[in-house]
């Protein structure tokens, strides 16, 4: 009880400092997401003439109509009408970015299974990000109540993330988590180093409070601040044209995911800050932890398209699960129960680990 009260005093002090620099803190936290979303988020927005192949097994008027409608816009260009095997070969060679297979049953579904299959190359994410929504729109005109289209990425059967909307929406999840992770390591951990250099840590330690109260207070404030950065990045993403497919209720999932990641990185930052004497060295160490964790999470392109060498790292990267969770909510508009379990397990374990090491490996350095 006493310790909790003391940690709240430390928390209040941290938040007062944060508030006194509010504008700078917010501008700094928004700068990087803004640049990334504007520069990278618009990749593919003006793509036209994406080469696709069509394998038409239906050969009925509706299927011909569908093929015509695919080419009606300038977005797609059908370069080959062939069979499925040849189409997949073309896809793998990179000649086409997607393959549309129309089954004989088209336009009716066969016992509830789709009558159109779309294969896309994950490596061509920018183009497929534009191509697939166009194909979907065309096919869904023949929809009679049940989903009539199945979208499958080629080579690896990965989920359909990032395929039914633009690359920008795909990127926003990664950018949110970047804001959180960077906000945590360059907020809480750095503040410990600065506090030590200015003699504040020493002046806290000569008061009757326990050192754990300092850790807890810093952990609280670091978590709150970086969660706020994450929410700001989400707001910025929406302002720049992103959307949450699940609607406003999606926040119920997104905010806890952000919170746990914030907690984990705040813990890591506090531990590092207590052990590293200079900001220069801290910056190097923190960057070399956060940058790879961020890239490996599939923030920029699907983790499934990483070379096999990097795949295992991606699997053990907690950010992968947070990214996946946010994308389920923002892109797919549906957070499957299995994903909820794995994603939340991963981030909660990560957060507990961060808290544990911050207390366990904290070093009482005063000078």
């Amino acid at each position, binding site marked *: 009880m*006493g310790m909790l009260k*003391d940690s709240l*005093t430390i928390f*209040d*002090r941290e938040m*007062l*400092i944060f508030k*006194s*620099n509010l504008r700078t803190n917010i501008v700094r936290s928004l700068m990087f997401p803004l640049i990334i979303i504007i520069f990278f988020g618009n990749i593919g927005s003006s793509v036209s003439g994406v080469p696709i192949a069509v394998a038409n097994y239906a050969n009925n008027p509706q299927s011909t109509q569908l093929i015509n409608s695919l080419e009606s816009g300038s977005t797609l260009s059908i370069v080959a009408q062939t069979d499925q095997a040849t189409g997949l070969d073309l896809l793998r060679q990179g000649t086409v970015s997607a393959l549309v297979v129309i089954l004989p049953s088209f336009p009716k579904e066969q016992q509830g299974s789709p009558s159109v299959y779309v294969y896309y190359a994950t490596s061509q994410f920018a183009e497929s990000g534009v191509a697939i929504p166009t194909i979907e729109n065309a096919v869904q005109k023949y929809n009679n109540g049940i989903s009539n289209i199945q979208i499958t990425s080629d080579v690896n059967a990965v989920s359909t993330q990032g395929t039914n909307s633009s690359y920008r929406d795909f990127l926003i999840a990664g950018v949110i988590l970047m804001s959180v992770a960077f906000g945590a390591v360059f907020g809480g951990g750095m503040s410990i180093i600065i506090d030590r250099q*200015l*003699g*504040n840590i*020493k*002046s*806290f*330690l*000569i*008061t*009757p*409070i326990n050192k754990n109260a300092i850790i807890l207070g810093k952990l609280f404030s670091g978590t709150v601040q970086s969660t706020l950065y994450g929410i700001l990045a989400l707001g910025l993403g929406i302002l720049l044209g992103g959307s949450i497919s699940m609607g406003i209720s999606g926040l119920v999932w997104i905010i806890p995911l952000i919170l746990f990641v914030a907690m984990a990185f705040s813990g890591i930052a506090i531990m590092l800050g207590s052990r590293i004497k200079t900001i220069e060295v801290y910056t190097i160490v923190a960057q070399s932890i956060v940058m790879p964790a961020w890239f490996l999470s599939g923030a920029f392109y699907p983790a499934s398209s990483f070379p096999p060498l990097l795949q295992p790292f991606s699997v053990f990267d907690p950010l992968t699960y947070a990214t996946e969770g946010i994308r389920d909510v923002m892109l797919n508009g549906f957070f499957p129960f299995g994903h909820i379990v794995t994603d939340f397990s991963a981030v909660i374990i990560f957060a507990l680990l961060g808290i544990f090491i911050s207390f366990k490996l904290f070093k009482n*350095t*005063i*000078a």
Partner: protein
Amino acid sequence: MNSSNSYSVVIKKLSKKFGDFEAVKDINFEIKHGEIFGILGPNGAGKTTTLNMILGLLKPTGGSILIEGNDNVEESEKVKQIIGFMTQETVVDSYLTARDNLRIFARLYHIPESQVEQKVNHALEEANLLSFADVAAGTFSGGMQRRLNLVKSMIQEPKILILDEPTTGLDVQSRVSMWNEIKRLNHEGMTIILTTQYLEEADSLCDRIAIIDHGTVKAIGTAQELKRMVSKGNILGINASEKDEEKVLKLLKSKFGIALVHNNNRLEATIDSDMLGNMAKIAQALDREGINVEAISMHLPTMDDVFIKLTGSSFRDKAGEQQSSMNKVSKYGR
């Protein structure tokens, strides 16, 4: 009456090891109620380590520290309420207002919510900062920040105030006002422990002084006692040009029986105080022999002389050694 109760601080057989390095070796001393106690000695000599142990920042390897009768390891929370501490560097949160700075520390010292505002206002008044209470401390002048720092260190109304080099780096005016502040607090009954680099400051301000070097207490006592320890008489010093030095040595040896030695770039000898009247005679004799000296002086031993005698080198020469010992400490201990 328990002997520990007649003293404010009792240090018994205190030692601290960092790995193989013994920073403090079996130190014993007491600090009386209401005195200004000075600790002299370069940082690496164990002064900082001793202070950190008194403050409860470091656990002693051996021995004990009693603060107002409380063991500072076993009753650390109580002891921390008794001790106030101000570091050499000014420590205030520059982004926070003076009031918030004080509020945070009032809460950290577990002052009841209902009394916090009153204590904070009192402290602001003491520091003469009431009209700047809601201004960020970072905008204050150095002197204002220092005053804020001092009242912040005393927000819990300690009985003992520890000041680590309170005047280092201050201009003459601020130094004098700091001295007056220390004297005022002491006058109000506060026991004060301070470390300093300025020997003359220790001389004029402290009731008693401990000189610490290589982890041990070399001497302890009032400034007068320490000076008497060095010499019962006066110190005669003559500055002469190199070619004349030989003549001066010979003359004083033969005529007055004084054996001068080279020290501090001049010739020095300790002489009985009753020879004070001889100063004029020495000057006359030198004049008669046609020896021109640059300066001739006779003075009581200073704290500097005490320091030289006890540690084998002058205070300033210690700077380099201090650095190397500091490195040792940080390598082992921190």
